């Protein structure tokens, strides 16, 4: 039996990425579909690549919260300060009660960029710098605690860290917190920032592309890493938020195959998508768009393509945006859900930046360029991670499309 959850409204969202600091900038970038990736500015690497680096300076952390000060927290703060997002959350907090509003973060890097600097000091001097704070900067829940303090929220607060499916799974945890009545609203954040550990680690696995990545392309040669901070505010459904987009379900599965490569047939990916549909009682025929995980490694792309072919055949438009903003790792689920919402609500579907000649083994209806389409009622967003950790997020354009409760 599939897990049972009820839909929740997505009443606000914000996304920071190389595409810009406002939702309008993201929308513009999705429309233009022009690669924003460039050689890294602040990280030096012994190999060539391009990355999706934050284009604007990040805000400073207030002195009262300096324990939390790291690149990840600053990028999260940038999202709070953009598009009036902080005001929206504070209004919702006051409407419900701070104890009824939770925070669930999805991250894989947390503050490790700053720890890398601290370790330079450690290797040189035999001790960590005076202000090093593992729990409040490096540990994976650090940015969640920062957001909770920043917004004076008092509900449950934790991080899901399942590599590249982290923030997609965080959406599932948040939905359950509301469904079970623990919370009335949950702030979901997907935040990952560039660091040498992930760049050099993926390079050691021979997965980094020296040039802009080409998801699902016959000539693809690996991933580009990006940084991102995406936030979504989930609220219990009510008459006032019925016309907001809704999160219907997050399907999850485990590959039970390998730590760093997916099951080659995409069985786990298929199981996650099927579970999402079953949980929400949505038929495959009702899905109008799939936002692909499409990292641009051969194994990942083919596994996902096979899974979607079995589930949806070649009927559904599919695209992936990692050629635009890079692979934002643990943040990618939230970043790409926001990108899907931003496009869907504007009446278009994103293209697949970097795709020129589709891999002949990929039997999908791939969108190279953005496409005008205001007919999509339901969309899937995929996120798959190391450890065979799969998640597929099922979205509805509006609560109006759902049967009345």
């Amino acid at each position: 039996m599939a897990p049972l959850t009820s839909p929740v409204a997505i009443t606000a969202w914000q996304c920071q990425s190389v595409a810009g600091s406002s939702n309008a900038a993201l929308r513009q970038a999705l429309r233009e579909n022009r690669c924003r990736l460039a050689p890294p500015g602040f990280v030096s690497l012994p190999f060539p690549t391009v990355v999706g680096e934050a284009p604007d300076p990040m805000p400073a952390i207030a002195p009262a919260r300096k324990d939390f000060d790291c690149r990840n927290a600053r990028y999260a703060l940038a999202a709070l300060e953009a598009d009036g997002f902080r005001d929206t959350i504070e209004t919702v907090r006051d409407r419900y009660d701070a104890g009824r509003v939770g925070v669930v973060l999805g991250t894989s890097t947390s503050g490790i960029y700053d720890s890398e600097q601290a370790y330079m000091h450690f290797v040189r001097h035999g001790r960590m710098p005076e202000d090093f704070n593992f729990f409040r900067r490096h540990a994976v829940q650090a940015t969640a605690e920062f957001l909770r303090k920043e917004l004076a929220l008092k509900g449950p607060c934790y991080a899901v860290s399942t590599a590249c499916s982290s923030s997609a799974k965080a959406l599932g945890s948040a939905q359950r917190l509301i469904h079970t009545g623990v919370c009335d609203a949950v702030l979901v954040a997907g935040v990952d920032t560039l660091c040498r550990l992930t760049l050099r680690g993926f390079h050691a696995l021979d997965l980094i592309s020296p040039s802009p990545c080409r998801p699902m392309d016959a000539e693809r040669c690996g991933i580009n890493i990006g940084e991102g901070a995406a936030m979504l505010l989930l609220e219990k459904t009510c008459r006032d938020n019925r016309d907001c987009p809704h999160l219907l379900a997050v399907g999850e599965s485990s590959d039970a195959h390998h730590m760093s490569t997916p099951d080659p047939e995409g069985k786990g990916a298929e199981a996650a998508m099927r579970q999402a549909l079953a949980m929400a009682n949505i038929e495959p025929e009702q899905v109008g768009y799939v936002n692909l995980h499409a990292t641009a490694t051969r194994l990942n792309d083919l596994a996902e393509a096979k899974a979607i072919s079995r589930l949806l055949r070649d009927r559904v438009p599919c695209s992936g945006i990692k050629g635009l903003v890079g692979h934002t790792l643990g943040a990618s689920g939230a970043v790409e859900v926001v990108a899907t919402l931003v496009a869907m609500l504007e009446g278009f579907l994103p293209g697949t930046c970097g795709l020129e000649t589709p891999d002949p083994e990929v039997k999908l209806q791939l969108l190279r360029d953005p496409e005008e389409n205001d007919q999509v009622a339901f969309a899937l967003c995929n996120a798959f991670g190391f450890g065979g950790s799969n998640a597929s997020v099922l979205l509805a354009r509006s609560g109006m499309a759902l049967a009345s409760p």
Partner: protein
Amino acid sequence: MNHSPAFSVYLAGWACCSLDETLPGRLGFPAVLPDKRRIPASVRRRTSQAVQLALTAGLLACEDAGLNPADLPAVFASAGSEMQVTDRLCIELAKPDGWISPTLFHNSVHNTAAGYWSIVTGCQQPSTSLAAAEATVAMAWLEAWCRLQSGARSLLVVCYEEVWPDYLEPGVGLYPAALAWVLSDLPDNAKAILGRPEPSAAALEGDDARLAHECPALAAAPLFRAVSAGKTGGDMALGAGWSIPLKSCGADE
């Protein structure tokens, strides 16, 4: 579907695994050493203390519950997870000519134990890996409670911590240990009946508070001590301002 805070969950089995032989004295219940025979050599060779503790405790908890590990969704929780692997990688990164091992890199993710768990048991059910610093165990209980109220019939929870390098968070990560339990929505043969975790003024006290600080995975030690002694404990503190109602021990309700 019952969505009330009173929704009960049933403890079907549990186990504790530790490398420290002084620990059972402080816990008040037994803890076994990691069991090499239960973990295939190919996995044992390439995995950390954290993974081996988590796998052993998880397998023993399933055995205690009489359930097949491959059938259970799982919640893995650790404040630090792969501390030693990440430490080694960060030291390499800080050297001018440091070498990054691809295996160490993919073993540095927070969900490494969950990944190897699914590989070793063949379990394709959903799993998650979470962290909440001092509240890690409380949030693991909450996530598990929510999953059981959202259609999961039974699930495994594994809280684990390996020994942390002493310069990262001094005083934390002193004990390598894993505590795992299986929860079910069925009362059959339940070892205890528990309610929803709640914010609470109940705090861990004395040596239990010290132990939860030294090994955050052991914040539920007083709860399992009460279970093993057959006591109904009322609200059991989980640390970080959370507690869980222990409604009854034994399948006698």
